[in-house]
């Protein structure tokens, strides 16, 4: 801030390069007030409401069988959807950044598509495909396979929602790094997998981890898409966010906020890890406004 031309040259003039102190104070105050009202108060409120019934009630709420089965199902969904999305992200990044081909920008746009589709529609398309009145509905029910109102439907809807998360983080970085290191590895006799494992992955590990982190957060927290395909069967198809909804609608507010606080804690940990990763990679991962 102090490093202006005038000061460097020790000119006896004052250049209007900063706002008056009063303006700065007001702007900082406005920004902070907005963030306190819209971000900090809600975050604090989750934990206050969660412990309103006391610590005993809190732990009872997150260890009752239906809560535990929701936690288990949510972890299962993350465990399946995150590795698949990461594999997709790496494959997409390899094809898009290491080769030149027609239609590449269209492909990039299509990968981003799930970002601008309403979660409700993301769930609905699978109902149209696999629901009882859907295209494959009759065939599936004749063979006793349940996808909608069952775990496979929840996984499909989650896969749709998180599809861009890893690709989005890895592609810009690999674009920036170019192809020379991989070409050198191949010329030295490495095969494709060796090149990927020993050259590319070490170069992109922080961006990859960052994408995985965001993907994991979204997979665990997704509500709209999952809500459409789940059927809200307690103990079977309720994920943690759905369990929060069920408890809330049953007026079990303290229990609802107790489960919500676990999700909030996960969100805070995600934010902390995100900052650690940004610090480790030494730069802001800026393309990640999702």
């Amino acid at each position, binding site marked *: *801030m102090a490093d*202006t*031309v*005038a000061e460097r040259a020790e000119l006896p003039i004052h*250049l*209007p*390069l900063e706002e008056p102190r009063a303006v700065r104070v007001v702007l*900082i105050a406005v*920004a*902070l007030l*907005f963030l306190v009202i819209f*971000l900090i108060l*809600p975050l604090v409120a989750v934990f206050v409401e969660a412990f309103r019934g006391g610590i005993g009630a809190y732990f009872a709420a997150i260890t009752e069988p239906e809560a535990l089965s929701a936690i288990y199902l949510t972890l299962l969904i993350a465990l399946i959807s995150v590795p698949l999305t990461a594999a*997709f992200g790496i*494959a997409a990044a390899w*094809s898009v950044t*290491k*080769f*030149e081909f*027609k239609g590449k920008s269209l*492909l990039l*746009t299509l990968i*981003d598509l799930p*970002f*601008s*589709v*309403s*979660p*409700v*529609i993301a769930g*609905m*398309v699978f*109902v*149209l495909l696999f629901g009882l*009145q859907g295209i494959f509905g009759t065939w599936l029910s004749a063979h006793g396979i349940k996808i909608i109102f069952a775990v496979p439907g929840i996984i*499909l809807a989650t896969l*749709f929602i998180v*599809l861009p998360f890893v690709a989005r983080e890895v592609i810009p970085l690999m674009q920036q790094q170019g192809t020379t290191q*991989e070409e050198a590895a*191949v010329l030295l006799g490495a*095969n*494709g997998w060796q090149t990927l494992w020993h050259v590319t992955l070490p170069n992109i590990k922080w961006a990859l981890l960052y994408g995985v982190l*965001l993907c994991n957060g979204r997979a*665990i*927290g997704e*509500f*709209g898409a999952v*809500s*459409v395909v789940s059927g809200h069967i307690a103990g079977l198809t309720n994920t943690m*966010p759905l369990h*929060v909804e069920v408890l*809330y609608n049953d007026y079990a507010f303290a229990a609802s906020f107790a489960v*919500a606080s676990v*999700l909030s804690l996960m*969100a805070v940990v995600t*934010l902390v890890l*995100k900052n650690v990763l940004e610090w480790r990679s030494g730069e*802001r991962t*800026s393309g990640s*406004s999702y």
Partner: protein
Amino acid sequence: MLATAKTLYRPSILPGFGLTLGFTLTYLSLIVLIPLAVLFLNAAGVGGAKVWSELASARTLAAFRVTFGIAFLAALINAVFGLVIAWVLVRYPFPGRRLVDSLIDLPFALPTAVAGITLATLYAGNGWIGQGLAPIGLKVAFTPLGILVALIFVSLPFVMRTVEPVLRNLDREVEEGAALLGANRWQIILHVILPPLLPATLTGFTLAFARALGEYGSVIFIAGNVPRVSEILPLLIVIKLEQFDYAGATVLAAMMLAVSFVLLLAINVLQTWTRRWQGG
């Protein structure tokens, strides 16, 4: 034959083109493209009379108005405050700046259902904020204002995060030049600083608008969901699905998707424009 192959794909010594592109296209098609195509096919199969009765019904029109109007307003409010917050974070060193900066992304990390129940509790008549607003006759929870609050929350980081890198990369010597040429601070802000921020702000605004349009989880808890007053389109789609009115839901979803595609196109154009200012 060789000529077409050359223009479609430029050869490289790196392996894996067929494998990675094949996997990418297959996965993308199975998870996203084919399901969305089925939605449009279903919509095309719905009879004209049903489409008309669906789109012209007072309830649908009201939901369109509520969804688009409030999403637009939320994106606009976030555009203004996003600019201010980005400006403050980049230009003014103040204690706790790192913490504030990392908190901005909370709406991306916090599950929407959690945001929904928390905002509903905060803004209810007996909530921390609702209590303060009740004496001046302002009801937020279970009214359209509640929808606005929820949509501001979920789309809060977009403008801030798209403007911030551009602002950081602005060459301060241009400002010094303007100052040496006799411009006052207000002229510098208006004519030197704001123009390069415009594309990024518009990109962020469009991203926020697109996100707010489709939002469901955080809104349904705080909206009150009164048909024709505080009912959003995604909720109307869910209601139709629950009533097994697949045709009605499909018509509405196809309309929303068409809007999403237009917004996606706009975002692409705007991002290309933004990148020119980022000097990347």
